[in-house]
């Protein structure tokens, strides 16, 4: 197994390949993909398109097509999650960061596929997207223990159509999720899905919206969920009951 590590979007990223590292161009293309999304959508960069929007220097109708498409997609998810996921911050700043990382991961994956690079695992700041397998075995992954980041909560395989695992929580960057209501006491939510955008958005929505959003996400999107409540209690969907480290 070979690993390529890089820094992007204010966090650490790594791609682990089942075999040798692919040609350098393929790795550069992945990093460029993230850099482009970051340059356009980061509120931490004063020269990004979204910062111009935030300042009022640019209005939405004049924004680029990619910007408007991503905003439209964010609004679509907002509707699907009954406002638990939203691109609108309470202070009225438009913030697409809840979607940008996953979209960049998706685009990077498409780039690797197009370059005929297979059997890899991409981890960006704790969100995972896998392709293929590791020498015939499924990729084996873990969810970190929110009480002790040196320990794992559970481990399981990402196999079949389940390529994506995203976790949202209040542990690493503080309360970086703006909770829409006081209904949720979850402090870490992990979602396993068939694509990284769905996994990431729903993890955020469930963390913000609580049990109601969890049940709805399972029913509507068929995802698997592991949620850790404020008191340390854990709920998990049936498939996750079999994860190593859990007992009913």
């Amino acid at each position, binding site marked *: *197994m*070979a*690993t390529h*590590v890089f820094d992007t979007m*204010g*966090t*650490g990223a*790594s791609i*682990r390949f089942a075999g040798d590292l692919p040609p350098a161009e393929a790795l550069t293309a992945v990093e460029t993909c993230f850099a482009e999304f970051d340059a356009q959508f980061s509120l931490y960069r004063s020269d990004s398109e979204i910062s111009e929007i935030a300042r009022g220097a640019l209005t939405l109708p004049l924004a680029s097509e990619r910007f408007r498409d991503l905003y439209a997609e964010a609004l679509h998810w907002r509707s699907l999650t009954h406002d638990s996921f939203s691109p609108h911050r309470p202070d009225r700043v438009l913030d697409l960061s809840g979607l940008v*990382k996953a979209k960049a991961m998706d685009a990077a994956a498409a780039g690797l596929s197009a370059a005929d690079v297979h059997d890899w*695992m991409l*981890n960006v*700041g*704790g*969100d*995972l997207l*896998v392709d293929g397998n*590791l020498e015939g075995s499924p*990729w*084996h*992954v*873990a*969810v970190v223990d*929110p009480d002790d*980041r*040196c*320990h*794992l909560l559970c*481990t399981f395989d990402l196999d079949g159509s389940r390529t994506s*695992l*995203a*976790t*949202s*929580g209040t*542990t*690493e*960057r503080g309360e970086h999720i703006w909770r829409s209501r006081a209904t949720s006491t979850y402090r*870490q939510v992990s979602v396993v899905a068939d694509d990284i955008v769905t996994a990431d958005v729903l993890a955020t929505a469930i963390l913000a919206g609580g*049990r*109601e*959003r*969890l*049940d*709805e996400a399972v*029913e*509507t999107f068929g995802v698997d*969920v592991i*949620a850790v409540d404020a008191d340390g*209690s*854990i*709920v*998990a*969907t*049936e498939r*996750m*009951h079999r994860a190593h*480290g*859990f*007992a*009913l």
Partner: protein
Amino acid sequence: MRRRAVVWSVLSSGAILAVGWQLGAETAATTGLAETQAAPDASSASVSGGSAATTPSATTPSATTPSAAATPAPTTSEAPAAAAPAAPAAVSGTFTGTSVSTRYGSVQVQVVVSNGSITDVVALKLTNDDNRSVSISNRAAPVLRSEVLAAQSAKVQGVSGATYTSDAYLTSLQAALDQAGL
């Protein structure tokens, strides 16, 4: 008459369950759990009741014979005939269905009928630890931790956690795995 009453009793239980089931699904899609008990949306209850075939409170004369309506008495928690003398053409009362075992757990519903219309449906048996009613679609169940898993002992290639900063990555389990090439 006795036989007819028994048949009606069975039919109404079935219909009540069907209504409850449908309402449960609808509630899950729109509001989720917990609210079902407090205010299960009376208007949608009436609509569901109306569209679910052969509601127990059908307004046709044949189905609203006071004696027939009163017959499911074994499972009735309030005197269903209370309003009957005043309004013999329409049924009022609270009817409780039998408990049915499903893959989501046991289900039992209670239907409040007022003048032939269902005004309230309450899930009685679908409860979580707090005794709040829970929706039928509720599939995530509590799990316990069977052991503390050390990262080193678990042969994983990736670790998912809440988004960390670049600095925090350096001390994360993922960084350890990446550096070790495990």
